[in-house]
């Protein structure tokens, strides 16, 4: 019998203004590296990463979208199938934070109702240029009942952790086919080293 290489498939989506660092975040997560020479995303990009959570192999299919307005007709068509969406802003750019509200409306309009959301305030390595306080990020996340992290693709802060938590949240509401499952109330598998307390 052909062996399946994974137990579950989760589709995730990264959205947010152009230049906030979506592609870098994804590259950090999938290839554990930072590259400053990315060209802006045109349309949509795609990566796969398989993770292990509570003994289950989960294949993450991650779609990285272009931030600029022109591409919205193309990118909103991906919202429907997404099980998790990461909304990214840049803590050094108030405008990208203000636009989170707009991206949230987009989700309401185009995504499944029960999609898991997460807000990321990226570039938290640039403390000296910070323009959006962590409290404001937390406040908007609380208001919408969404998880929140400050991240840095550059210094590898909270990147793996945020993907793992998003996957965990999706897993928790995935009806298990395996009845002997014991993963209710299991702790987030703290991937050591990545949860540095910078931000």
């Amino acid at each position, binding site marked *: 019998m052909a062996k399946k290489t994974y137990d579950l498939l989760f589709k995730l989506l990264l959205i947010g203004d152009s230049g906030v660092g979506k592609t870098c975040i994804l590259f950090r997560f999938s290839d554990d590296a930072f590259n400053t020479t990315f060209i*802006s995303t045109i349309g949509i990009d795609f990566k796969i990463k398989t993770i292990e959570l509570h003994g289950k192999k989960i294949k993450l299919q991650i779609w990285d979208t272009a931030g600029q307005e022109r591409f919205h007709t193309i990118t909103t068509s991906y919202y429907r199938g997404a099980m998790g969406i990461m909304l990214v802003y840049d803590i050094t750019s108030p405008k990208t934070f203000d636009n989170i509200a707009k991206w949230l409306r987009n989700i309401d309009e185009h995504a499944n109702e029960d999609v898991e959301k997460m807000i990321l305030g990226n570039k938290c390595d640039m403390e000296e240029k910070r323009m959006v306080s962590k409290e404001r990020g937390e406040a908007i996340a609380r208001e919408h009942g969404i998880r929140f992290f400050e991240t840095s693709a550059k210094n590898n802060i909270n990147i793996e952790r945020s993907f793992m938590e998003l996957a965990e949240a999706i897993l928790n509401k995935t009806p298990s086919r395996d009845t002997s499952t014991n993963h209710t109330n299991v702790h987030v598998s703290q991937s050591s080293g990545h949860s540095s307390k910078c931000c």
Partner: protein
Amino acid sequence: MAAYRARIKEFHDVLNEDQINLKRLKSMCFNGIPDEPGSVRALCWKLILNYLPLSPSKFLSFLEKQRKLYSSFIQEMIVNPGKQHFGKSGKIDVTFEDHPLNPNPDSQWVAYFKDNDVLVQIDKDVRRLCPDIGFFQRATEFPCQDVVNAAEMETLRKRVDCSVLQSHTVMKNRQGAYNWKSSKKSTVEYDLLPDGKEAHWEVVERILFIYAKLNPGLAYVQGMNEIIGPIYYIFASDSEREWSEHAECDAFFCFTNLMSEIRDNFIKSLDDSAHGIGNMMMQLMNRLQLHDPDVGSLMVTQDLKPQYFSFRWLTLLLSQEFPMPDVIRVWDSLFADSKRFDFLIDVCLAMLLLIRDDLLKNDFSSNMKLLQRYPVFDIHLVLSEAVRLQKS
């Protein structure tokens, strides 16, 4: 070698006619323009993109006119506003009547700041232009004198810098709580060349900014940088000084001509119109179905939507799919084709057919990877397959 030399000679012969035979020139360019160190390719592109007149005796007066015109654009759109706003953008006094938060729509600042938004967007993209070849990060031999030497003006550089600062100042005023600490630090991480010098990417930035100002309905859309990039690169690497010196102006007009044909791809509201990108993607899929029903139906069953890969292929004329020398070779054919962008669809179709065996074997994920990072191929193979398809 002899054949190569003969080919170059053939180009020179055609280009030296009193009246250049465009049809013949195009059919020669379609098969590839020789990569000789002179300026044959640059000259051919200027002709087949309908920029230069067909009689070389008219080049000089024509070019003089265009260069004057372009220089007046720079004056009007960069130098004059830059002088008007000199010294103001750095330190904004919120009690000042004409400050950026003034809701009065007549406010000069509104226009200036709208422009700055466009500029910041362009800036983000051109800094990252073709990092693989290193060319755009190097200094140009011919910086724009009007800009580099102008005293007391806000250059585009300063405007980008200041608009980052500005949003900080504005935030502070609105929120009160945020103290802006590092006003002395450079706001840009990227190393700029010293004053008096300009990198090639800054020249491209200026071209795109002027284009955006002249075409407000379209302004700047990401991806345009990938279209102007190779054109400017070819013109600026021309070994003849009298051409390379004016690469900026010539590239601007050739880009404008090219954009007039492909601009619909960059307009969201036209996605589903007859000329929009949606229609091109559909044509590609229909032709795939016709030529290779197996792969055609695989695309459907695996839900490999054309937007996932061919949106970028078609919008950027394949400029992100191949290394620069191959892109340039593909563009020889694209620019030379009489039904210019029909051939683009043929090339995309050829790309799909050449990897058909892999496509049929792979699952969705591997196929997505394959299509988004097209494997290295001999570009001539791709093009000859495209020609075969064009004829069929």
